[in-house]
């Protein structure tokens, strides 16, 4: 049972929460970095290899494009359809092979990353799909290479949507990270499990909930801000709409 009057209780609570927060941030941060590095190119390739898109025939082979597209689409759907708890357990041999151990906060990053990549690939896919096809055509008409097209047209245009989707991705990684206690991973989820559930300390649960809430809010706010910086501001969107109809925008 908990004893709030104990002189060691509050310092201990704070220390446990801080440690849990750090572990969560560590797991989620590294998982997100790897997810971005892997998921971003995969998402672009997934859309690009579609029929009629800029990568439909990589190295001049349409077959290769079709094959890449089919395999990627399959893997992404597979990854997204397996429940995280099952995936985590199924990945234990893989994690052990990769890191020599499957227990602990470090190894827990592996299943977190594996579950986040398909999610993020879909995020990138949707963002890339929304880029005006006319822009690809324009870049092509300029004789731009695919790499230039991706770097100077696709990424600048898709970045705001990717950033907003990344916020959702991070949030779901945080969500999944609460479950890694099962494989000995740390973090706030584990705090809630070991202190809140097993020792009946509702104060720990409240602490965990508050921290997670603030964390998610901060992440959402930061990514939304970044997305706005990277993209068209709402006020200017209206001008775009106005100019599409040939009406001159009113100078502010």
């Amino acid at each position, binding site marked *: 049972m908990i004893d709030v009057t104990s002189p060691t209780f509050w310092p201990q609570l704070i220390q446990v929460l801080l440690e849990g927060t750090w572990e969560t941030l560590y797991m989620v941060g590294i998982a997100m970095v790897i997810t971005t590095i892997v998921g971003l190119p995969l998402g672009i390739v997934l859309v690009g290899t579609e029929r009629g898109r800029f990568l439909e025939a990589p190295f001049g082979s349409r077959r290769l494009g079709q094959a890449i597209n089919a395999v990627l689409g399959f893997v992404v759907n597979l990854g997204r359809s397996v429940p995280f708890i099952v995936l985590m357990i199924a990945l234990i041999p893989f994690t052990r092979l990769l890191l020599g151990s499957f227990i602990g906060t470090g190894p827990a990053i592996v299943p977190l990353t594996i579950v986040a990549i398909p999610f993020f690939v879909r995020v990138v896919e949707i963002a890339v799909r929304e880029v005006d096809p006319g822009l690809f055509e324009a870049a092509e008409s300029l004789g731009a290479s695919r790499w230039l097209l991706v770097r100077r047209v696709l990424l600048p245009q898709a970045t705001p949507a990717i950033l907003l989707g990344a916020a959702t991705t991070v949030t779901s990684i945080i969500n999944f990270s609460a479950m890694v206690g099962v494989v000995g991973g740390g973090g706030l989820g584990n705090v809630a499990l070991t202190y809140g559930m097993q020792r009946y300390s509702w104060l720990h649960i409240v602490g965990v909930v508050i921290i997670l809430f603030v964390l998610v809010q901060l992440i959402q706010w930061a990514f939304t801000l970044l997305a706005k910086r*990277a993209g068209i501001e709402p006020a200017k969107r209206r001008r775009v709409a106005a100019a*599409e109809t*040939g009406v001159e*925008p009113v100078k502010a």
Partner: protein
Amino acid sequence: MISIEHVSRRFGDGPDAVVALDDVSIQVARGQIFGVVGQSGAGKSTLLRTVNALERPDSGRVVVDGVEVTALTGQALRTERHRIGMVFQHFNLVGNRTVAQNVELALEATGTAKKDRRPKALEMLDLVGLAHKADDKPAQLSGGQRQRVGIARALASGPDVLLSDEATSALDPETTRQILDLIQRLSRELGLTVLLITHEMDVVKRICDAAALMEDGRVIEQGTLEQLITTPHSRVAAELFPVGEAHGIPGHRIVDVTYAGLSADRPVIAQLSRDFGLDVSILGAALETIGGVQAGRTRLAIPGDETTSRRVIDRLGDHGVTAWEVDPATTGTIATSASASTSASTSTTKAEVPA
């Protein structure tokens, strides 16, 4: 300069297949501004895209300045595209990059050194009168300004050919005129050959030297404007000179008289009345400046039979004026006429009021 030879293209297979281009051949001379007109769905857009290989024809070939574009792939095609600029109806500017960066993309594509890109981009923007907007985002510009950026981008690689895909169709009439004048000026200054597609006859009237009419994937007629306006029953000419429907008048023959340049000043019709003692009535008339030349068409009702009208037509021919008899039943109009474009621009003007 641009030679499109027996190009065909179909989309889809079997009975659902749509024939976008059906054995189309078009010749565009160096320095010419050539307009392809027709309704949407006529295949104009597909045709234009075969010139820079954004679209591949199923058969036929496209040759630009001696280079067979239809045979190119990979890097060779990309290099050739640097010599063929293209502007689009919806401008297709990268919204999240500045105006200068949009132009710099074209320079990066040609492999221009990094330090030279911005000065060159500013130079191109200056050419279209937008150097002061270099660091704005496209969303901060008006439609006409955006098309100017599109033109600057298309011309940054120093092409010999400019393709225009309905470049003014999203613009109001005044802006349309400015953009057309800009294209004309640049084509003269830079020696550009321009191939443009449009559904607005006004565009042809204002800047084109030659035109082709497309319908259902086929070229119905083509030639220089001077040839077209003096070709009997030319539908392009009928659109250029809206003299109205030909209604039959009992006991009369209907004759269309077309004159261009010098002959426009001569009082040929008055002379006709005197020479033959005929009471000629004028059913309709249109006077237009086409390709910078004053040209006109008058529809006359001439009392008498076929012999009379033949004599009249021959006499007009002696004066250097082209004339032919019109069968009241055969005069039709192209649906995408000047009047259609006027109504479209009217709605644009209305939309301007609440802004």
